[in-house]
């Protein structure tokens, strides 16, 4: 799938001027509130007609103001999961789910009710009314409803924003399965670093109506210059790792990554599983000599590559640990005291308990591209 977007649009005093291309399976539109994320998905879905520009999916123009093309929303086959669900209150869950399917020509249907019910765990909800569902259940039904219209592109606009933490953890695995099982390209809007890190293959960073950066998730999350957009508190490097082993005696799980072995509290992933770990920059200590007598279990050797631009008393440091980027957030005072500069060898110290289940993304399963064409094309 390729999504290409190049639009300019004015909304009151706010100007949207965005250009990006993505081949990713899950493209995250990431940025703070008011960055223009929702307006952008509304343009892709056809709910907003942009002043100027083009949107193409797999080479087919949905909007092209220069050529006078504007495909109306009901002919786009772009599924949309809204922040607030927007289930039809007068229809049962089953009728909600089947609504879009009914308008999809039989030849273009690829999703069945049974598949969607199975994927999203909707079985017990089918005969209920939307009004009686919890927030998390509503969002699962909304995802199922969009899916059953057999879209060629699925837009998810902060589907977890209105949910509490427990509900988010309940839905995230379903979105991962959606990404890995259904093979529909997804555009996912979020302002949460944790969600983006866990789900995205490609990240578009939006700021003040412009695309500040586009790239792979690990690359974007490892860039110091993007910290102002990604949010300092939650930002951190993303590491692709593998579950190496579980130690039953200590209750720890060992992860293997290019930087070395990382230890974290036990998770029930099978050895060999690929995982994605986010290590928040503020959870990383730096030492210039190999530290001893520490309670922290993870000590990774590396070299300082970059020290972030001035921002008060805090400095962000990018380290290279055996080819793996790691970010640390320490005081400028410490940078001076340790004499850190690009090229300085240093050790990154990370407490095992800084890594928990929440900082892990599920295994991103690879699949054959030819397979995708056959199913979705």
């Amino acid at each position, binding site marked *: 799938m390729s999504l290409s977007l190049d639009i300019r649009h004015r909304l009151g005093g706010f100007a949207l001027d965005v250009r990006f291309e993505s081949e990713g399976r899950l493209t995250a539109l990431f940025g703070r509130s008011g960055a223009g994320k929702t307006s952008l998905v509304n343009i892709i879905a*056809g709910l907003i007609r942009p002043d100027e520009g083009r949107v193409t999916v797999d080479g087919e123009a949905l909007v092209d103001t220069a050529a006078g093309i504007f495909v*109306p929303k009901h*002919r786009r086959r772009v599924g949309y999961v809204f922040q607030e669900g*927007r289930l039809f209150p007068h229809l049962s869950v089953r009728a909600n789910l089947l609504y879009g399917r009914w*308008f999809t020509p039989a030849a273009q249907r690829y999703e069945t009710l049974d598949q969607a019910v199975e994927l999203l765990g909707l079985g017990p909800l089918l005969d209920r*009314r939307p009004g009686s569902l919890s927030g998390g259940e509503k969002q699962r039904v909304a995802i199922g409803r969009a899916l059953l*219209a057999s879209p060629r592109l699925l837009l998810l606009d902060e589907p977890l924003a209105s949910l509490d933490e427990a509900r988010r953890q309940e839905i995230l695995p379903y979105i991962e399965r959606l990404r890995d099982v259904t093979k529909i390209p997804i555009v996912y809007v979020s302002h949460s670093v944790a969600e983006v890190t866990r789900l995205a293959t490609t990240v578009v960073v939006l700021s003040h109506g412009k695309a500040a950066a586009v790239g792979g998730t690990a690359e974007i999350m490892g860039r110091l210059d993007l910290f102002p957009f990604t949010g300092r508190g939650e930002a951190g490097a993303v590491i692709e790792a593998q579950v190496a082993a579980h130690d039953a005696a200590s209750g720890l799980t060992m992860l293997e990554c290019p930087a070395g072995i990382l230890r974290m509290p036990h998770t029930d992933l099978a050895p060999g599983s690929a995982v994605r770990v986010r290590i928040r920059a503020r959870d990383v200590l730096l030492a210039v000599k190999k530290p001893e007598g520490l309670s922290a279990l993870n000590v990774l050797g590396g070299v300082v590559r970059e020290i972030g631009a001035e921002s008060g008393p805090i400095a962000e440091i990018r380290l290279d640990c055996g080819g793996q980027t790691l970010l640390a957030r320490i005081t400028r005072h410490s940078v001076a005291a340790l004499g850190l500069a690009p090229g300085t060898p240093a050790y990154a110290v990370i407490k095992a308990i800084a890594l928990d289940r929440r900082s892990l993304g599920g295994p991103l399963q690879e699949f054959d591209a030819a397979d995708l064409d056959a199913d979705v094309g």
Partner: protein
Amino acid sequence: MFDALSPEEWTAVRLSLRVAFWATLVSLPFGIAVAYVLARGRFWGHALLNGIVHLPLILPPVVTGYVLLLLFGRRTPVGAFLEETFGIVFAFRWTGAALAGGIMGFPLLVRAIRLSLEAVDRRLEDAAGTLGASPAWVFLTVTLPLILPGIVAGMILCFAKAMGEFGATITFVSNIPGETQTLPSAIYTFTQVPGGDAGALRLTAISVVVSMAALLGSELLARRIGRRMSHEAVG
């Protein structure tokens, strides 16, 4: 109870129900269309259309009846055209009473539907659009079911108004027993003749019963529809 009514009174009751039924039924599609245009349309003449629709509510009914007579009388161009082309005659027929009732009830019908249309969450219509429904299907499958309580309420009001309509009816189609003598006209006639009090009272009682039944019926229906869409599980 039915034995208590004379055949003439009984005829007036049946005629009133028939007039109100047809007045409501024929007004309905126009009422939905006008309510939709008023609720959603942004065009020049919006205020004018709104004014025309509401005019019968404010004008003296006699004026409305006289205007109808000027427009639809047999010797007027419109009246003649309708008679020659469709065979429809309004003047001094029960159909004219239905037309008068429909016109008088129309503002109430439009108002109720328009209010419920304005309360519809348009984001639901957007959602239906992204699921592949064309604007016409969105209206039929989302908007219409959501405004059903308003439609029912508007129909009841229109029905009640058409049943009770007196001034415009008597001006337009007169007071012909068996043809245009509806309940209010019959009551009026009874009060004009000596010894008619008992008949007037009987018909008044019927009016109260029918109106009450309509109101209760609409309340029940609206509540059932409301429950169907509320936050409770089914069954």
